[in-house]
């Protein structure tokens, strides 16, 4: 088990990609994360489940440094995130790809330009190289013909795939994915999950996925954790959790929408 709420046996630092240690976060007096600890092993796909408002998306934003915890430590690839050190924060973020729930593509530029954006900012590649990488990433998400379109011209599923292509542009070691199937029909959601499965097979990327859709996530997730009231109440492989004593865990693992 690589994720748990209590102190867990010491694993070697190199094999842990993400580690949250006793993290707490409150918003306007309401505790969202309470003494929350989790470790995600390198190359694994870790799935966070829970009812709405239990802090799943907040956990992802804490991992990427968008939200500063009130207490506790966040370690990415062995480096502690320090919100006062903007340079370090920037360097850490370059190793992380983040897919937002609504994709959050920049709406004033085309899909290709969105994918090219991080390459232009953080690499010294030539324009021809950037174009080639953009095309490769768009092909990976099956959007190679949509590059010239504006984000407003894409469907929900296409937006998610374009967001994924942008998140993958710098070949990140870690991928954080917030609700990959929300707002999508079953067929489109399946396409997204197939894409994530392909990605997992083709690369050694460590992923943390927030979702309600356990049935879809079973295809690619190595481990599941159930969040309730700011804490992990259960963690393990799908089969381990199906027999949990906790009714919420059983219900979520059974694949019920919350």
């Amino acid at each position, binding site marked *: 088990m690589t994720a748990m709420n209590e102190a867990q046996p010491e694993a070697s630092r190199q094999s842990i990609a993400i580690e949250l240690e006793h993290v707490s976060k409150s918003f306007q007096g309401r505790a969202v994360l309470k003494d929350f600890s989790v470790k995600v092993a390198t190359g694994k796909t870790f799935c966070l489940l829970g009812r709405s408002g239990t802090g799943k998306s907040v956990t992802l*934003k804490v991992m*990427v*440094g*968008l939200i500063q915890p009130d207490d506790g430590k966040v370690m990415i690839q062995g480096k502690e995130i320090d919100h006062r050190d*903007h340079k370090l924060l*920037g*360097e850490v*973020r*370059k190793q*992380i790809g*983040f897919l*937002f*729930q*609504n994709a*959050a*593509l*920049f*709406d*004033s530029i085309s899909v290709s330009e969105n994918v090219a*954006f*991080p390459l232009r*900012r*953080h690499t010294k590649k030539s324009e021809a190289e950037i174009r080639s990488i953009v095309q490769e990433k768009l092909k990976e998400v099956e959007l190679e013909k949509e590059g010239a379109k504006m984000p407003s011209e894409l469907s929900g599923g296409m937006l998610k795939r374009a967001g994924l292509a*942008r998140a993958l542009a710098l070949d990140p070691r870690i991928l954080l994915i917030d609700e990959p199937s929300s707002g999508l029909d079953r067929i489109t959601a399946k396409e997204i999950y197939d894409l994530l499965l392909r990605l997992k097979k083709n690369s050694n990327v460590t992923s943390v996925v927030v979702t309600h859709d356990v049935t879809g996530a079973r295809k690619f997730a190595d481990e599941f954790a159930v969040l309730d009231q700011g804490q992990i109440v259960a963690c393990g492989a799908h089969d381990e959790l199906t027999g949990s004593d906790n009714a919420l865990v059983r219900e979520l693992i059974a694949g019920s929408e919350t």
Partner: protein
Amino acid sequence: MRHRLNAFFGFVGEIGIFGLRAIRDAFRPPFEFGEILNQVVEIGWRTGPLVLISGFAFGVVIALVTLASMMTFGAQAMIPEAISLGLFKDTGALITALLVSGRAGAGIGAQLAGMRVTEQIDALETLGVDSFKYLVVTRIAACVIAIPILTTLFNFAGMAGGLISDLMSLHITARLFIAEAFGSMAMMSDYVLPTAKTVVFGFIIGTISCYLGYTASQGAAGVGRASTRSVVFSSVLVILVDAVLVRTIMIWYPG
């Protein structure tokens, strides 16, 4: 009442800190020169035609109004000078700032608020980009750079409007109009300082619009509110600050 006053001064303080942070970050690398240029072009593109048309129309109106009053005193010869002084000393700068506030300021407020509520600003941060420098500092700098240029455009468009109006209503040549208009103008107090003060207007419009957009919340309603408040707050503050700056220039350069 006390609660409202506290909220007001809290709001003013936050905008002040926001503006000071922008000044500090503007001098720290990496410098976003390309994005500043994009924003200057964007503001110019959005506001330039409006400024030219408004300036021309304003010149015509001021010429007609001045003509009516001057004819009463038989002082038609002073009309070109009255138009140029009216435009260059203050009115041109103030009207241009209000136009920029209404067009570009509202646009900046709405655009940043839209980016905030759709998580595009968060997306920038996750891509390792300092969103404050990339979005806020560049837009404030662009406002500071663009407004003096737009003010100059407005003033000369106004002079063109005044010239055409006077050519049609007075027996005056273009050469004489220009000589009368600019002959007695003092370079520093009538042109340089009144145009330079628009840098302050640019900073006010940029800072308020960016603050309201960058800190927006509550979805589509928040976007609308950021846009409207950007125009209202920056326009009022520009007028108040203009009164102070005009008085300051008059103290430095009396007469």
